[in-house]
């Protein structure tokens, strides 16, 4: 039980430090900005460790972070192989193809009001569908290797992206568009100089949502058939073997990969949409 109380004590202390940090001048510098979330994360881990040890929770239900860390250190080659299979071969190609195709489609239907009126309601509708349900079907079609995982990701990512891009392209107001036409801007000029930049916040919103969908899609698809490596395979297999430490190790890798992916998109967003009010601090 002492472990639990120690953890709670640590939590309160860390909370205090964070409140102070975020208000202080140091909190506005780069390292300070990074320190706050890290401290928060460490607190969660400490609380978790304290809970598991203090309450004597069995390792087959919830392993302690220290056990998970040991497992990560001990199975780096396996984790790397899973990472390559699921993220590099499944999620990323699927993400790029899916959002690329959505972008091209959005531009294509942008020029044709007829297609736009036809495709948009359907796109909106499909974007809301539980596409994961297609995973077993796509695995049946594209085989059990990474191709089917990428296919699931493409389908999952495509429609949310399409809807966001189309909404983004309509984001600039009438006045701005009229201004462009009074300057005699061509369709292409007005697209590149006004409408695409104006659409960027929406596009990045879509990209962020798509990045998390991509990961879920790639992992869920492995559920329905896969080679004997891959993060989804590892998770579902190890749950059955009660290797919960390995499950959490894989989850940690997935979280890390997802965060880096998301972080990259955010960095690019900052750089592209520096003018948007939401980017001001």
């Amino acid at each position: 039980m002492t472990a639990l109380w120690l953890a709670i004590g640590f939590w309160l202390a860390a909370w205090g430090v964070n409140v102070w940090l975020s208000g202080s001048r140091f909190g506005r510098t780069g390292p300070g900005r990074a320190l706050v979330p890290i401290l928060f994360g460490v607190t969660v881990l400490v609380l978790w460790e304290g809970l598991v040890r203090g309450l004597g929770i069995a390792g087959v239900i919830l392993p302690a972070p220290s056990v998970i860390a040991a497992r990560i250190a001990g199975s780096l080659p396996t984790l790397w192989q899973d990472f390559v299979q699921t993220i590099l071969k499944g999620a990323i190609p699927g993400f790029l193809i899916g959002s690329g195709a959505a972008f091209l489609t959005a531009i294509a239907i942008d020029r044709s009001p007829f297609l736009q009126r036809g495709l948009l309601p359907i796109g909106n509708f499909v974007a809301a569908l539980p596409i994961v349900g297609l995973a077993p079907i796509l695995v049946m079609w594209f085989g059990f290797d990474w191709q089917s995982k990428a296919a699931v990701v493409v389908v999952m990512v495509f429609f949310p992206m399409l809807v966001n891009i189309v909404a983004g392209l309509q984001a600039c107001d009438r006045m701005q568009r009229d201004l462009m036409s009074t300057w005699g801007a061509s369709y292409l000029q007005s697209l590149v100089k006004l409408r695409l930049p104006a659409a960027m916040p929406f596009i990045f919103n879509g990209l962020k949502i798509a990045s998390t969908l991509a990961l879920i899609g790639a992992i869920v698809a492995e559920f329905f058939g896969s080679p004997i490596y891959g993060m989804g395979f590892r998770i579902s297999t190890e749950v059955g073997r009660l290797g919960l430490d390995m499950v959490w190790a894989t989850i940690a890798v997935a979280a890390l990969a997802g965060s880096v992916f998301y972080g990259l998109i955010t960095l690019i967003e900052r750089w592209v949409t520096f003018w948007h009010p939401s980017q001001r601090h």
Partner: protein
Amino acid sequence: MKRLITAAVLAATASAAQAEDVKLQLKWVTQAQFAGYYVAQDKGFYEEEGLNVTILPGGPDIAPTQVIAGGGADVIVEWMPAALAAREKGLPLVNIAQPFASSGMMLTCLKETGITSPADFPDKTLGVWFFGNEYPFLSWMSQLGLATDGSPGGVTVLKQGFNVDPLLQKQAACISTMTYNEYWQVIDAGLTPEDLVTFKYEDQGVATLEDGLYVLEDRLQDEAFQETMVKFVRASMKGWKYAEENPDEAAMIVLDNDQTGAQTETHQKRMMGEVAKLTAGSNGALDVAAAERTVASLLSEGSDPVITKAPEGAWTSMITDKALAE
């Protein structure tokens, strides 16, 4: 761990005081594979023993071992390899009864791939279930001396999903099937038995014990729990024997209990017929020789054995001795 055990024991005493509630976690979704329990429930066999049994269907993400560890069930249906592996991981599971006398697992291959015997396996793709069901396969391959990492001369292993599509789509040369389920789906799909070559684990001498009843070791020390389990096993076996004698009725009972409404009469009746063949030789008591064979097969696996040492106390006859006494 210690606290959890205390909690479990406390929970056990608490539930024993009430109307003897028993929660049974199945290994998979509601189907005729578990007919005995549904029959015992439906025909009132549990009720006659004064038990209030809740049958919890499983699913692709439900490991019965984890459920029982978390206190979500009192007794689980599990395969012996998975139960022994869990035991090595520190979850003290004990087999208290073994309604399935023989194994229904086999490898079904397409004849057109040229496979006629296990000697033809090298460099082929074989479909296997994971989630604790891969152990018999891995130990067979290791006895054949075949690597399962996809290296030349070994076999490429594919984690098959919940159906037989990898075989139909020719993504795998062979897939794992159960005599009572997937094999017939292959046949239903339009392939004839002549198109197929099957290798039963039973015939290959690598059979392991399937659907047995497992409980946590600590709870067995509690006499009230013992008593409940004796009643439970007795009623369950009565259910199984009834199901064997009346397969069609049993299948319909299973169908009534299937809440998805997606199971079909044809599938369940056929499955019941096949399952009856596997349970026929068992009165519920575990055949210790078969259990030792299972252990030997799991231990013999080459580089990555399923279990590293022979388990002690992984099964007990104290429940079945009493249950079958009368």
